[in-house]
């Protein structure tokens, strides 16, 4: 099933340091088209940095990240085009507060894809309907709840029709009662075959939705496998102790 032809992301020897502190200490990983990969691990283990290296929000100190065979490099001329294909959803939503919900969705398609306003609006309305927020099109982001903001943020990323979606702890800043509505949208997206990399603390989601789980600890992939492998039969002591801590709580 998995072969080189459907490799969406190829990560080789990825290292990232902030000053003297090395956060990622050599990561090799392939992510395949249609695959849902959840990344779990303790705080400060480098999960988010790993994710942010995929669309080059962080520039690797060493090693390479390729998406569809294209090197992700901040100084590359085509980096903006490469990023168009990689949607990202942030912990703190990062909606554009000065733009309406609809314009949050249409700004990138109209500026980047030279899509006409009418067409962009149509696409945006379809996406808002999909995340259950068609009635909020003219609202400003500040009037939305956290869960609604995050659903808009997902729709905004989808408006560029990306082939890959990155989620950086998308439910960590939400009140508990709003986590479900965001996870439902993500579940639906996974069901439609979207390639997804999800950094999360939602173990239930990771177990249920992902094809593969990566456990990152101290800057390396300490363990990986199917959810059943990682959650039910962890081999690594650090994985065991991490899971004991999070699943007990």
């Amino acid at each position, binding site marked *: 099933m998995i072969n080189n032809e459907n490799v969406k992301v190829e990560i080789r020897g990825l290292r990232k340091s902030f000053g003297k502190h090395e956060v990622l200490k050599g990561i090799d990983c392939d992510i395949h088209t249609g695959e849902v990969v959840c990344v779990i691990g303790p705080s400060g283990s480098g999960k988010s940095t790993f994710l942010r290296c995929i669309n080059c*929000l962080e520039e690797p100190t060493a090693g390479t990240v390729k998406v569809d065979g294209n090197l992700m490099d901040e100084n590359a001329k085509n980096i*903006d085009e490469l*990023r168009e294909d990689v949607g*990202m959803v942030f912990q703190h939503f*990062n*909606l*554009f*507060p000065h733009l309406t919900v609809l314009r949050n969705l249409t700004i990138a398609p109209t500026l980047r894809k030279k899509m006409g306003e009418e067409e962009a609006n149509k696409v945006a309305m379809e996406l808002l309907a999909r995340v259950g927020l068609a009635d909020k099109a003219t609202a400003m982001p*500040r009037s939305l709840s956290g869960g609604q903001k995050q659903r808009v943020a997902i729709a905004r990323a989808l408006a560029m029709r990306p082939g890959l979606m990155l989620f950086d702890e998308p439910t960590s800043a939400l009140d508990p009662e709003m986590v479900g509505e965001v996870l439902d949208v993500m579940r639906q997206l996974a069901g439609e075959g979207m390639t997804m990399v999800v950094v999360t603390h939602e173990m239930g989601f990771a177990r249920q939705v992902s094809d593969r789980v990566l456990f990152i600890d101290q800057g390396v992939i300490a363990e990986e496998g199917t959810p059943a492998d990682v959650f039910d039969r962890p081999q690594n002591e650090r994985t065991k102790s991490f899971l004991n801590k999070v699943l007990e709580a």
Partner: protein
Amino acid sequence: MLTQGLSLTLELAGVSLVFAMVIGIFASLMGMSKNPILRGINKAFVAIIRGTPLLVQGFFIYFGITGLLGIRITAFMAGTIALSLNAGGYLSEIFRGGIQAVDPGQREAARSLGLSASQTTWRIIIPQAIRICIPSVVNQWCITIKDTSIISVIGLAELTKMGQNIIARTYRSFEVWIIVGAMYFIVIWLLTVLARVVEKKVSLDD
């Protein structure tokens, strides 16, 4: 006579502030540039503006530079240049502060959607920075309007100078300074009210 003085004050302040805004924008962009030379120029500019009195800046431009170059400019021109540079220096710091106050997550979100660096700056960062800056910019406008009175010493018959002239003839110090003060006050009060309306209209807070 006082209304003539007021109109010169407004003219001087208005023209200076337009130039000051332009200078401020470019100076702040220089200050945030990747190029260390441009950053250095901005730093030196701001340091000189901050470190010397407006009065000295005015004298230097009107007498110092014109004397050295052997050219003549009008007092109005000299006053405008001094006020523009002075307010421009302070505004550049206000703009830089405003741009840097925008959540870094905004830039990341925009770049992650594929927006280029300049699209991100102009479409996402600047519109939010302007909102953040409004109170401080209006504050600087008020200061510059009043600073026109300092620059009158190079020979501009603006409001304060007109007041002095009237007193020289009438000796009615108390009444004249009350009226002159009230005129400044009303202009600035109107500006502040207007600014507050604008601020409220574009506010992004709850």
